[in-house]
């Protein structure tokens, strides 16, 4: 994810990128393996030391066996992992797309919430529409909600220079409170037995159909979205402009690219993908918008985008890994009865090792710093770019 010396052409860029994927693919793998080893030590510490279990190693293996089997060990497990990975793919793509424009979108959480809200609203308030109209309308509403919510920080950044990290975090709060207000208030399911902050169920016509039992079509949409993002970023002029702005905004401006427009567009599209994540959860999993049901997915997606090196394929793979880890936690806990928080520790470890990998690279490759500042652009994000 070190970036390309831009300004010549995409072809040159690809030629220069030949060796890059070696590091790009191997280092995350090493991070994961190292994390599993260190995680194993933690499981070992958490577990009992038994007679007949050689130093408790069986316990650790048992835990991991549960984790992997729970994630990928049966058709049911794989389906469940795919369902878990679906919102991660959308939201991970959202964060990655913004990253490609040099924007750190912390707001996927709020954009996802708005997407879920819009989709839920369209889903439950309309009746009698045929599925061919209602379902696309529901998903489009979610995309619109996310798009608008993403565009706000984009406009603020382009017009005033307000840093998107700050504005998206604040918009997350606003989104959370807005959701809380609507779901506890005007949109609350009026069923007298209902005490939960949730909308009424969405119409049948707005449900995402099932591909297999338990697996809704959203996962196919997610894969299509990954292809679409790849095509958009690397095969279209708009995508090229966005990536150029991300690589070097000043150079992009010199080359005649409208930087402001690209920032707003990138944030809007990023929000749109995050909104779709929320909409797919509503239309495919919960069949209503429920307060707090998708909390944390937007934040996880930042890690997923980073782990996936901000490439669509990388995001899909790391989303599957995250989905699998989350999904396998149940069987792991069932088998070993250790706290499910261990899984969160392992996920955190993976991220720490990814960060450590960058530090290591930075130590050993003196020329990298310029590349580093290009890739995340946190330090240059202040002021109008």
């Amino acid at each position: 994810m070190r970036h390309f010396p831009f300004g010549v052409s995409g072809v040159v860029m690809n030629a220069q990128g030949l060796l890059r994927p070696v590091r790009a693919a191997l280092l995350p793998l090493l991070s994961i393996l190292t994390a599993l080893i260190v995680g194993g030590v933690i499981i070992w510490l958490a577990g009992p030391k038994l007679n007949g279990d050689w130093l408790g190693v069986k316990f650790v293996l048992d835990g991991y066996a549960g984790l992997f089997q729970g994630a990928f060990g049966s058709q049911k497990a794989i389906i469940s992992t795919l369902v878990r990975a679906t919102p991660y793919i959308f939201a991970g793509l959202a964060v990655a797309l913004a990253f490609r424009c040099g924007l750190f979108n912390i707001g996927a959480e709020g954009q996802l919430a708005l997407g879920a809200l819009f989709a839920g609203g369209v889903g439950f308030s309309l009746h009698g529409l045929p599925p061919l109209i209602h379902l696309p309308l529901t998903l489009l509403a979610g995309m619109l909600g996310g798009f608008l919510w993403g565009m706000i920080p984009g406009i603020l950044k382009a017009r005033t220079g307000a840093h998107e990290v700050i504005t998206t975090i604040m918009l997350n709060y606003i989104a959370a409170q807005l959701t809380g207000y609507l779901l506890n208030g005007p949109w609350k399911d009026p069923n007298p037995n209902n005490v939960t902050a949730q909308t009424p169920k969405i119409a049948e016509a707005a449900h995402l159909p099932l591909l297999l039992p338990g697996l809704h079509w959203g996962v196919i949409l997610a894969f299509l979205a990954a292809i679409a993002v790849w095509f958009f970023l690397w095969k279209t002029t708009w995508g090229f402009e966005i990536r150029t702005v991300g690589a070097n905004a000043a150079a992009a401006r010199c080359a005649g690219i409208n930087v402001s427009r690209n920032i707003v567009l990138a944030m809007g599209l990023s929000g749109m993908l995050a909104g779709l994540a929320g909409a797919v959860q509503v239309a495919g999993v919960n069949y209503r918008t429920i307060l707090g049901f998708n909390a944390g997915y937007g934040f996880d997606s930042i890690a997923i985008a980073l782990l996936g090196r901000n490439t669509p394929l990388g995001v899909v793979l790391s989303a599957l890994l995250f989905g699998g880890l989350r999904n396998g936690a149940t069987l792991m806990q069932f088998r070993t009865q250790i706290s499910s928080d261990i899984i969160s520790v392992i996920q955190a470890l993976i991220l720490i090792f990814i960060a450590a990998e960058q530090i290591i690279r930075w130590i050993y490759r003196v020329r990298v710093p310029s590349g580093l500042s290009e890739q995340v652009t946190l330090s240059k994000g202040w002021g109008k770019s």
Partner: protein
Amino acid sequence: MRKSLYAMLLLFALVLPLLAACGGGTAAQPTAAVAPPTAAVEAPTAMVEAPTAMVEAPTAAPEATAAPEATAMPEATAATSGTGTIKIGMVTDIAKLGDKGFNDSAWEGVQQAAKALGVEPKVIETTDPNDYQKNLDQFISEGYNVIVTVGFNLQEATVAAAKANPDIKFIGVDQAQTDVIPNLAGLIFNEDQAGYLAGVLAASVSKSGKIGAILGTDAVPAVWRFGEGYRAGAISIKPDISVQTVYHNDVGFDKTFSDPEWGKTTALSMIDQGVDVVFGAGGRTGNGALLAAADRKDKGVYAIGVDTDQYLTVPEAKAVLITSAVKIIPDGVAKLIQTVADGTFKGGNNFGTVGLAPFHDLDSQVPADLKTKLTDIQKQLLDGTLKTNVPAAKPGS
């Protein structure tokens, strides 16, 4: 080049199931080896049960419905004779174990019952509310025949699972049943009675004639019943007493029970207006009120906790905590599980016992005649001769 490297990543993804398969082979025995340690920690006597665990632990074989299909009666005899065909699983809500509340209390009850039956229970902590169904399915597919779910958020998933699995007994803690499903028992409590007792005590020990309560949202009927029961109890002692009840209705459902700052600030302002007994009922929000009372210890303020004995869960408030209005969840859960073993399990609503926790450090401040009065009132409430006249839910909500 790039492709081949992604191929490697993919390869890694493909290797995972293989690893799992390898692990699975070795896993069958270790699982059994793993089961006893918890037992070893809890109770040495349970060590005897290791062989039992051995039988039930391996997962692959029993998945076929052979064993679990058998219904309650034969199991009951089997379980009491110690072969352990009753398999008890519990699914927590996202507060998970360690919440010092519902989840911990229910797990305590599960463990009590399991120990009496000589079996090893298992728990799955829910980390994502999208997983309620999945976590229930885990127990169902492993042939568990008593499944406890904790909290009203799990009600929908529990009802669905109970309807789909009529041979499995479900116990829903804090889940009021609207329709009777024969294999689903809701464990609920008359919170108004617990609140009533707290109100009687509060009115009796108050010197200023002003008492208060800090509560979560009144959209949750249980919270409303605590608050209004408290008011009714206080007025029954002193008809002219001032009872301020403040519900945290101004925030979302995710926040209303987890806002100790608000609870504390609101309680402090009450105390500064002369309130000298504060009842905190609303998760961590209510705990904030207990801490506020602790801050004003020198003013002779008392605090009353809720749900469990909060002398043990909020040690910061020990010095002012006169009692807690408790729902005795462990006993309720344990008794319901025992009815499965006895073959007397019944679906529908089951009312657990409510009462007041011990007075602990402030025991000397509660006069003997008040203690007697409280015991009498509790008895009358439980046998129905005394009514709190609090409706089941806030009218019109």
